[in-house]
């Protein structure tokens, strides 16, 4: 069995996860193993969708042709690999949707955001898939900013009632064309995230910080078809809450009232403690260097 740290959890796995941070511990928070995935779930607050089923403590996902997954009680992941798929693909979807399900089952809220550390505090860059979170993160890394997490950041409230964040794992995923644009010799194409996907993992084990760190600011990236220049606006408290709800990673997996209440409480605290900016950028032809320059003015 392999032991790792990821998303603030001790993970014991039957398969290797080069993406995660090797760790040593006595008791695992989550175990991952191959096995039989149930066909159906039952129970209260059951939600059935074409490729997934969800109840309060369990979740099934079918990535057609790749793998079926079962996440249970925030502690167990079982996967059934498709005949023609490979472990690389199995791991990719497990580290995405399935870890989100595990975190929700544990009552934790993952944000769809990349993050840097500045002056001992976190700055998050949130937004949907494809808005440029990882590209912006890599661009800031080029300028010497310290990378904290790519794509997902888990928010928590510490004992002093301060909102904090925990990183996911020490890898940034970048498309090949982004790698070429960034032109950073430290980035490479050694680790492809899926066999036919020109997307490459960039590891940062050496500088990875698995501490829980206070949150300072959140930038929400929003591509727009109707604008030609980057505009950054600080959001008022009402708009903040509405926008933050959409930035919760896989928010559709919040299926029960208890978790919804927890999310409400956490996001309310974020809204009251943290400055949140909306970054409107041209949807096409936008330049990451210009975006980075504009955002730097607010860091």
């Amino acid at each position, binding site marked *: 069995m392999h032991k790792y740290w990821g998303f603030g959890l001790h993970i014991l796995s039957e398969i290797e996860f080069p993406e995660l941070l090797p760790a040593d511990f006595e008791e695992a928070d989550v175990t991952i193993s191959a096995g039989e995935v149930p066909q159906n779930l039952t129970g209260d607050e059951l939600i059935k*969708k*074409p490729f997934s089923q969800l109840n309060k403590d369990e979740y099934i996902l079918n990535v057609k042709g790749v793998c079926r997954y079962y996440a249970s009680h925030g502690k167990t992941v079982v996967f059934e690999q498709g005949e023609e798929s490979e472990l690389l693909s199995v791991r990719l979807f497990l580290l*995405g949707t399935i870890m989100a399900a595990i975190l929700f089952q544990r009552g934790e809220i993952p944000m769809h955001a990349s993050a840097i550390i500045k002056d001992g505090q976190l700055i998050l860059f949130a937004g949907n898939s494809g808005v440029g979170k990882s590209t912006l993160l890599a661009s800031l890394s080029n300028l010497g900013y310290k990378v904290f997490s790519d794509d997902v950041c888990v928010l928590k409230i510490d004992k002093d009632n301060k909102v904090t964040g925990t990183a996911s794992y020490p890898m940034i995923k970048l498309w090949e064309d982004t790698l070429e644009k960034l032109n950073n010799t430290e980035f490479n194409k050694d680790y492809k995230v899926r066999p036919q996907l020109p*997307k490459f993992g960039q590891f940062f084990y050496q500088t990875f910080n698995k501490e829980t760190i206070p949150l300072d600011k959140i930038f929400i990236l929003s591509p727009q*078809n109707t604008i030609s220049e980057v505009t950054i606006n600080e959001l008022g408290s009402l708009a903040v809450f509405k926008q933050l709800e959409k930035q919760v990673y896989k928010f559709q*997996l919040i299926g029960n009232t208890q978790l919804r209440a927890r999310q409400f409480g956490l996001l309310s605290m974020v809204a009251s403690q943290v400055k949140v900016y909306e970054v409107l950028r041209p949807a096409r032809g936008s330049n990451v260097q210009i975006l980075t320059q504009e955002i730097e003015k607010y860091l």
Partner: protein
Amino acid sequence: MVKKLYPHKILWLASYPKSGNTWFRAFLSALMNDGVVAINKLDTDGIISARETFDFMSDIDSMDLYDDEAKLMVRDIYSNLADSSDSLRIIKTHDAYLTDKEGNSIFPVEATHCAFYFIRNPLDVVGSLASHMRLSIEECVHIICDKNATLATQNNNLNKNKQFRINMCDWSTNVTTWTHALAFPVYVIRYEDMLSNPFETFSRAVSQAKFNFTPEEISRAIKASSFEQLKRQETQFGFVEKLRKDVQFFRSGTMGNWDKELTPVQIDKIRQTHGEVMNQYGYF
């Protein structure tokens, strides 16, 4: 609310691009909203190739899927979307009516209320498409004749644009795949009829969709969604659906401009490639 009459169903608005689809969506919006239409808030339900709908319904980050994997899931996604909705969904598509790699249609037949297919003279489509995509007329003549033409083009089975790859094929294939005896009603609307005889054309469509509106309501919606009104709104507020900010989506909206825009060689190529279907719809 007319959409409530048809829960768990989808009305497809299908067409080759620049053939009146958006105009019709604006008309429906006006019809369903007492004659008021805002082009950036059309009261229809997006496009089948939209990534956000897929990601929400599948729980998967679809950019990590290959295009053919995603296409295998689309039918079930939209079938479930219809099932879970208590009102009619009106969804646009520029895809030809094709099958996935397992031989199944990407459109869920059992969840379909009906489809409208919008058709426009391909000679006029070329100029409009060239302006929309900021390509030359020659490039668009090539696209409209290309059997493998796609929108939101992503090579090598990739799937990373804002939308999934749209397999629109060449103009004739787009038309014929939608109009050859599908398992649900497909009503063809000629763009030219929308222009020259709007009341009769839109009234017929309203009746085919089994929507109940009075002639006065239809007239009011036609007026509110007239080409001039849509163009005025685009000039004033911009249009979120256009590909490029510096290009007018609602351009001229006329018919028969092709003889000023296309060379005789280009006209000949389109007529040679698409003559049979053009003839069928009175364009030759």
